[in-house]
C-alpha cells in the first residue's frame, strides 16, 4: 500500500476554461438566438398537435417511408406532441450549457455521524421515555399489548376471506362426462368420425344445451384437441388404445406444464408443440413429453361414437387437466 509521501499528488481543480459566450458578446447573442429557435420549434410542435387533433380526421392514411401506410391523425398528433416537449428540453439545456454560469462550485461534505453529546442525549431521552412508559417493569401490559396487536393484525386477512371460493375439487373436474358429444370450436357442430381425414385436426369443446352460455373458465378446462392418424401409427398399450376410435385420438388442449393451449400439431412427425415454453408431446405415445420443461403428458380423453355416429366421450378425464398443483396425486 502506497503511503501519502510516495503517492502521486492531486494537482487540484484545473484552471477554468471560458466558453465563447462568456467572453464574446456576439457569441452570447448567437447562443441566445439558438435557444429562442429551439423554444419556437416547440411552439410549432404544439400548434401541430392542436391542429392535428381538431382538423385531421381519424381515417386518413398515407404512405410514409419506413413506417408504411400510416394513420395521419395519429402520426402528426404524436410528432407534434413529441416536438412540443423535446424542444423545450433542448432549449433549456442549451441555455444552461452556453449562457448560465459554468464555474465549478466546491462545497464541503459534513460528517453524518451526530456529535457524541447529541447521541448521548438521544439515548437518555429514549431510556427515560421507555422507563416512563414502564413497559420493562409492567410485563402484564407488555404481554396483553402483544396479544391485542397481534390479533388486530389478523383481521385484514380474515376480512379478505371471500376473495375466492375454496378450490374444492374444481381443479380435478371438467364438463366431460360419458356420452358428451365433441363439438367444433367455434361453430358448436357435432363431429362424425368420417368427417376427419387422416392427418386432420379439430379444435373441440363439450356440447352444451342450446342457448346455454359457455364461460371462459369452462373453456379453460374443457378444450380438447382431436387428431386423426392411421391406427397402425399408434404405439399405445391396450387400455389407451381402447380410448381411441379408428385412429382418432383426443387430448386435453390445456398444457400440463403451465396451461397454455397446446394446439400446434406437426402432421409428419406426429408431435404437439406448446408455443409458450416449447414442451413437445408425442401423439403416438399418448402425448408423452419428449422435449421441454413439461413433466407430464397431456391427459387423454377416452372417445367413441354414439348411436348416430357422432364422436362422444366415453368417460370423464381420468386425471385433472392443466398445470400441476399440490393436491394432484400423480
Amino acid at each position, binding site marked *: 500500500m502506497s503511503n501519502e509521501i510516495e503517492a502521486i499528488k492531486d494537482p487540484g481543480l484545473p484552471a477554468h476554461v471560458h466558453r465563447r459566450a462568456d467572453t464574446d458578446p456576439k457569441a452570447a447573442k448567437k447562443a441566445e438566438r439558438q435557444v429562442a429557435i429551439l423554444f419556437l420549434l416547440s411552439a410549432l410542435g404544439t400548434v401541430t398537435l392542436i391542429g392535428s387533433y381538431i382538423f385531421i380526421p381519424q381515417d386518413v392514411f398515407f404512405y410514409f417511408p419506413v413506417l408504411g401506410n400510416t394513420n395521419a391523425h395519429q402520426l402528426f398528433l404524436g410528432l407534434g406532441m413529441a416536438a412540443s416537449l423535446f424542444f423545450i428540453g433542448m432549449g433549456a439545456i442549451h441555455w444552461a*450549457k452556453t449562457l448560465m454560469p459554468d464555474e465549478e462550485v466546491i462545497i464541503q461534505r459534513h460528517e453524518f455521524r451526530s456529535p457524541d453529546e447529541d447521541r448521548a442525549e438521544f439515548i437518555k431521552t429514549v431510556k427515560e421515555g421507555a422507563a416512563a412508559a414502564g413497559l420493562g417493569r409492567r410485563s402484564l401490559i407488555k404481554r396483553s399489548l402483544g396479544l391485542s396487536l397481534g390479533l388486530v393484525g389478523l383481521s385484514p386477512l380474515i376480512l379478505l376471506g371471500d376473495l375466492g371460493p375454496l378450490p374444492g375439487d374444481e381443479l380435478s373436474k371438467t364438463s366431460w362426462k360419458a356420452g358428451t358429444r365433441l363439438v367444433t370450436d367455434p361453430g358448436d357442430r357435432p363431429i362424425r368420425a368420417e368427417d376427419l381425414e387422416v392427418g386432420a385436426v379439430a379444435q373441440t369443446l363439450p356440447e352444451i344445451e342450446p342457448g346455454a352460455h359457455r364461460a371462459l373458465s369452462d373453456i379453460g378446462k374443457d378444450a380438447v384437441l382431436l387428431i386423426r392418424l392411421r391406427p397402425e401409427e399408434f404405439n399405445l398399450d391396450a387400455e389407451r388404445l381402447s380410448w381411441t376410435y379408428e385412429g382418432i385420438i383426443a387430448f386435453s388442449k390445456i398444457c400440463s406444464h403451465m396451461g397454455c393451449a397446446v394446439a*400446434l400439431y406437426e402432421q409428419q*412427425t406426429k408431435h404437439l408443440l406448446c408455443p409458450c415454453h416449447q414442451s413437445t408431446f408425442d401423439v403416438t405415445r399418448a402425448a408423452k413429453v419428449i422435449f421441454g420443461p413439461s413433466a407430464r403428458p397431456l391427459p387423454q380423453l377416452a372417445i367413441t361414437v354414439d348411436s348416430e355416429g357422432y364422436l362422444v366421450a366415453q368417460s370423464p378425464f381420468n386425471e385433472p387437466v392443466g398445470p400441476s398443483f399440490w393436491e394432484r396425486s400423480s
Partner: protein
Amino acid sequence: MAPLLLVLALFSIGTTFSVAGAATSTPLTAAEKSALIDEGQRIFLKGCSSCHGLNLEGSAIAPSLIGVGAASVDFQVATGRMPVADMSQQIARKDPVYNEKEVEALAAYVSSLAPGPDVPGEESLNYERNGSTAEGGELFRTNCAMCHNFAAQGGALTQGKYAPTLMGVTPRHIYEALITGPQSMPVFSDKTITPAEKLSIIKWIKAAEAEPQLGGASLGRVGPVTEGLLVWTLGLGLLVGVAVWLAMKAR
C-alpha cells in the same frame, strides 16, 4: 402530338389483350383434357419422377403422390416449393419453376391416376362475398395462430421446421393448404372447418395483410421481442445521446 398518339395506341392494345385474356375459362373438351394429361406426364417424367418414382409410388426421399389430388400439386408447384432446391429442414416457398399451364398439366396428370382434392374454382373462392372477416379472425386465432402467429407472420416449429408467413399467399393457395395439409401442416376437413369458414379465414388474412399501420411502424408484428429491442437501441440510444450532450462543456 405524336407521343400522345403512341401512348394512346399502346394503351388500347394493352387493354384489348388483358380483356381478352381475362375471359373465364371454359371447361375442356375430352380431347383437350387428354392432351393436358399427356403433357403433364411428360413434364412429370422429366422433372419429378427421379424422386417421386415413375409411377408416383414415391421413394426413400419423396412421398407417394397417389391420391394427393390436383390441389396438392397446384399448391406445391405453383408456390415454387416443388421441385425442391434445399431438402435440409423444410421445403420453402420460392420462385416457381413451372408456369401456370405446366402446373395445370401436372395437376391433371397426377389427379388422373387417383382421385384427390381438386383445385378450388374461382367461383368458390369469392371470399369477399361469402366470407366474414370477424368470424374469420376467430377461426384463425383458434386454428391457425398457434403455428402462423396472431398476424399470420409465421412461427417456429420443432427441429428447425417453421410455419411460413401467409403474407403474399394467394387465396387459392391458402385454400389448397387447408385442404391438403402440406408437410407439417395438418388437414382441415370441410366438416370441421366448412368451405364458408375457410373463405372467412382467407378474408381475415387478406384484411390483416392490407391493414395499414394503425399505430406506427409495425416492428414485424411479432410482439414484445422487437419492441424491447427498439427500446434498448433507439429509445435508450437517443436518451443517452442527449445525456452525454447535456453534460459536455459548451465551446
